[in-house]
Every structure is written in C-alpha cells, then in structure tokens.
C-alpha cells in the first residue's frame, strides 16, 4: 500500500485556540502536528523581549502546550514542527527539555538556525545586499537605525534535514508558513529540489492548513450551514509521494470541510495565483482540480509548480512612531448625529490645547467603519454607535495627552455617551513592516540537535 502521512495544523497564529492542538494529539490520528506562532510583527516583539531578557524571545504558549501533550506525542510517535523558536530557539529548547525532565521523559529536539540576520545587517550591506523595499523601492538607509528585527523566510529542506536527525520536535524561527507542512513531506518521500510539482503540492497543502480552522468552517461565507463551530475540528492533510492530497478533520469534531471551505482558504491572502512564490517552489494556483470525495473530505490533484526563485524574502520590522485608539459608545435617539458631535468636540478641545497630530482618524463602528457609507443592504436607524478615534505621531507625549481627552465628554458632551470602562487609551509603538529580497547565497541555515 502506498505510504501516506497525516499532517495536521493546530495553530494558525499566536493567540489561536490553545485546545485545538491538544485535541488533534488526543483524537486526531496524525503523524505530524504543525503549529504556526509567527505573524509578521511577532518576531520584532520577540527581539525586544530578548533584548530586555536573554531568556525570552520565543513563543511561551508552546511550552505550556508541550506540558499537556508530551506524553501522548511520545506514546503515539507524533512529531511537532513549529516556528515557536522565534528569535531564541536555544532557550525554547532548554525550557522544553526541563519540561521533559520533570516528567522523567526523554525527547529529542532539533533547532533550525540561520533565518535571523539582525546582527548580520552591516556585514550583508558590505557584501552588496541593498535591502531595498520590494513594494515601493524605498532606500533601506532611511530606516536602518530603527530596525527591530530582520528574518529571512528560509526553505523547507531545512525542516526535512532537522527531521532526519530523528528529532520529535523541530523548532524553527522564520520558515515559510506552508513549509511547516511541506517539510515533513520532503523528509518522508525524499523529494528533491527539482520535484517542482510535488513541492507545489506540499506547499498548497500547507497554504490550505496554515490558518487552522479557516479551511474547516471558520470565517466561511455560508456560516449558517456550518454545524457546531464551538467544537470546530482543525484540518488534517493526507499526503503521499504524488501531486494529490486530501484535507479532512476528526469525524467527531464540529465545523465543515467541503469544496467551498477549501476554495475560500485557497484564495486567502492570494496575490497573483499563477505565481505563488515560496522559498521552495513557485506554485500555480490555477492548475489543480478539487473534488469532494466523502463527508468532510476533499481531494486536490494535479498541482503544478515551477523552479524556485534565487532569492529569499526578508521580513524587516522597524520602529516608526506611536499610535493610540480610544472608543466611546453613543446611544439613543439620533445616535449618529450625537457621535459626530462628540468627535467634533474632542478634536476641537485637542486643537484648543495646541495639539496637532501627524495623522488622525474618526470612525463610526456600527455604521461605516468597515465598508464606508454607500454599501448598505438594508437601511436602518442605528440606536447605538461606537465612536472610535485614533491618532498617530512620533511624539509620545502628544499621544498621552490625546488619551486624557476622551472621558470628559461623558459629562461635558451630548447625552447617552458611555462605554469608557477600559481606561485612557495608551500609546502603542508602531512597528512597521519592510519586505525585501536577499540572494539565497547569503543565507546559511544550520540544524542543531
């Protein structure tokens, strides 16, 4: 019989369900569990934490999860592939080994290094890497002194290499999100860099799984027909040494997998579908066929891919000022008009106090904040509106001053204003994103076990 591996994703982002990965280990009948903890901005937060405390800089939630599942993953031989290592995989590994030791268990952990290039920037600039912004071509020198983090999206062969050491947990930093699923397939089926269609197949499977329940009934257009979302099952891909795979879930879980829940996730964060560029391959998302083969099980076949580019994408994050947002609820007759007056009063008082901001925004939640004013299916009078005021500035003191101007309007504005229980809005750092490309020859990956 043809070898099949079952790869599940239990974490779409840091903050996703803490029980989903636990349930997959307990009831999922899987070979691999993937866990994605890193959004674009997460690594810069981790670099800041590590700067203050060298024992930090990884996804701490992952330690708590391993405490809950370590016995089961050893008993069932489930391997975990995750980017929870962040910018400090060594310390993350130490903490995991402590967990194992406390329980008298033995576990092998491999870490992948080489994606974090924060401290190599000067060296790389000397070698001629320009870090030019790939979206708007702006010059890296303008932001160089404000950089918080810099990570290359390294390829999935590093994950396969880590698995070949016999590791049960693979701790990476910035690998591509779909790579968490592709990596095990490369390892199990010995796929080579020229196996473009197969690499594309694993990448597409990873893309479908990478946001967890978003392919199994979550955030789905036909939401009224999704059963038991409270117990939604996270997705499981079954891959073989071919360009065909299936996506399904635990039969006893809630949610829904059909052709449309999968198609929606295929389209998520899609750019040019003919050229989906990953570190491993270029995938043609217009190539494959999709079929429902049984309840909550969809088959995808005929995936096409092309040779990878000679560059890695680099994700740089840098400090770019401060911002704050505050909200008030305005209720009762003429709620919208009163909300407009409330906004006018607050902005006028700030102006009278001599303040102006680099940017500001007034939004009416419940009326127009998401879609503007003209796109309305049914006209109705709003009985309440949430007024949201936001500002942005390089001067932190101005942000703090703004925060003090919201509460007074409750007693010194129109009637029916409430909802200020959260306290004064506080300044948040703006950590801006700087995408660029680097030639692959400049990045050396290393597996340590």
């Amino acid at each position, binding site marked *: 019989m043809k070898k099949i591996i079952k790869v599940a994703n239990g974490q779409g982002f840091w903050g996703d369900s803490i029980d989903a990965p636990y349930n997959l280990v307990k009831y999922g009948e899987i070979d691999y569990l993937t866990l994605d903890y890193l959004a674009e901005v997460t690594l810069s937060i981790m670099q800041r934490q590590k700067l203050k405390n060298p024992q930090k800089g990884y996804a701490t939630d992952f330690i708590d999860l391993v405490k809950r599942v370590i016995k089961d993953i050893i008993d069932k031989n489930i391997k975990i592939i995750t980017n929870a290592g962040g910018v400090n995989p060594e310390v993350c590994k130490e903490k995991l080994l402590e967990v194992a030791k406390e329980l008298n268990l033995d576990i092998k952990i491999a870490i992948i290094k080489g994606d974090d290039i924060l401290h190599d920037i000067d060296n790389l600039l000397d070698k001629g890497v320009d870090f030019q912004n790939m979206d708007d071509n702006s010059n890296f020198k303008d932001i160089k002194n404000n950089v918080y983090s810099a990570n290359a999206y390294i390829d999935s062969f590093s994950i396969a290499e880590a698995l070949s050491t016999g590791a049960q947990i693979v701790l990476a930093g910035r690998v591509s999100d779909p790579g968490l699923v592709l990596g095990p397939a490369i390892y199990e089926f010995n796929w080579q860099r020229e196996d473009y269609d197969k690499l594309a197949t694993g990448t597409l499977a990873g893309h479908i799984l990478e946001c967890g329940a978003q392919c199994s009934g979550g955030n789905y257009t036909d939401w009224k027909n999704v059963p038991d979302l409270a117990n939604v099952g996270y997705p499981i891909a079954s891959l073989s040494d071919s360009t065909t795979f299936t996506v399904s879930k635990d039969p006893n879980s809630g949610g829904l997998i059909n052709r*449309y829940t999968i198609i929606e996730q295929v389209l998520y*964060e899609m750019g040019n579908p003919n050229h989906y560029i990953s570190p491993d391959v270029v995938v043609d998302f217009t190539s494959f066929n999709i079929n429902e083969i049984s309840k909550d099980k969809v088959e995808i076949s005929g995936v096409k891919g092309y040779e990878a580019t000679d560059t890695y994408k680099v994700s740089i994050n840098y400090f770019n000022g401060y911002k704050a947002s505050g909200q008030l609820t305005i209720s009762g007759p003429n709620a919208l008009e009163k909300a407009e007056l409330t906004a006018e009063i607050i902005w006028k008082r700030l102006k009278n106090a001599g303040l102006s901001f680099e940017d500001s925004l007034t939004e009416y939640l419940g009326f127009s904040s998401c879609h503007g004013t003209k796109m309305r299916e049914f006209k109705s009078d709003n009985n309440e509106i949430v007024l949201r005021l936001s500002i942005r500035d390089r001067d932190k003191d101005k942000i703090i001053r703004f925060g003090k101007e919201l509460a007074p309007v409750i007693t010194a504005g129109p009637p029916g204003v409430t909802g200020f229980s959260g306290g004064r809005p506080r300044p948040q750092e703006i950590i801006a994103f700087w995408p660029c490309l680097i030639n692959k020859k400049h990045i050396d990956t290393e597996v340590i076990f």
Partner: protein
Amino acid sequence: MRIRLRQVAGARSGDKGKHSNVGIYFYNQEVYDWAKEVISVKMIKNHFSEIVLGDVDRYELDNILALNFILKDSLGGGGSETLINDAQGKTHGQAALLLELDLPKKLEKHVKV
C-alpha cells in the same frame, strides 16, 4: 433580475501588506462564465471607492471558478501602521458580496435567497 453578488458567490479577503485581496468564487460554471465577462476592475474600484485609494488588479482562476482582486492601498498603511478598525481588510470579502448586478434571465435558476 437585480441581485446582490452574495446570491451567486462566496468571498474571502485578507491583507497583502498595505493592500487587501478579495477572492470571489462562484457556485456554478455558467454563472462564473458570465461573471468573468461582467465583473471588471472598474466595477470593483467603484464599489470600493471609499476604501481603495490605489488601482485594482484582477486575476482569473478557471479551475475553481474564482476571481481574485487586489485592492491597492486599501488599509490605511496596513500592518501595525494603520489606524483603521479593519486593519487587515478581513471584512472586504463581505463588502464584495454586497455588489449589485443585473443577472441574465437564463441564470436566474442559480440564484440563492
């Protein structure tokens, strides 16, 4: 008949830096063939006129009966820089489904309530 897009299609959206993407997929081949002719860049740009500051790009995925639109500069800077409530364009898909269209009579049998 006059319909909303949601009666013949589903949609999902997300962010691509400071741009958002809106993927629209159809439940029926004939409806998709018609939509491919009718739903233009101009129509989407006009529908999202209060949201999109830049251009709109359009791609076709015949294998899954879907159109993908990139709404340039639709997120107030995107990521951590934006001040807007829907920072990642998560709701742009729902907005797309409010698009009003004149559906040919022969396709009316495919309309969902």
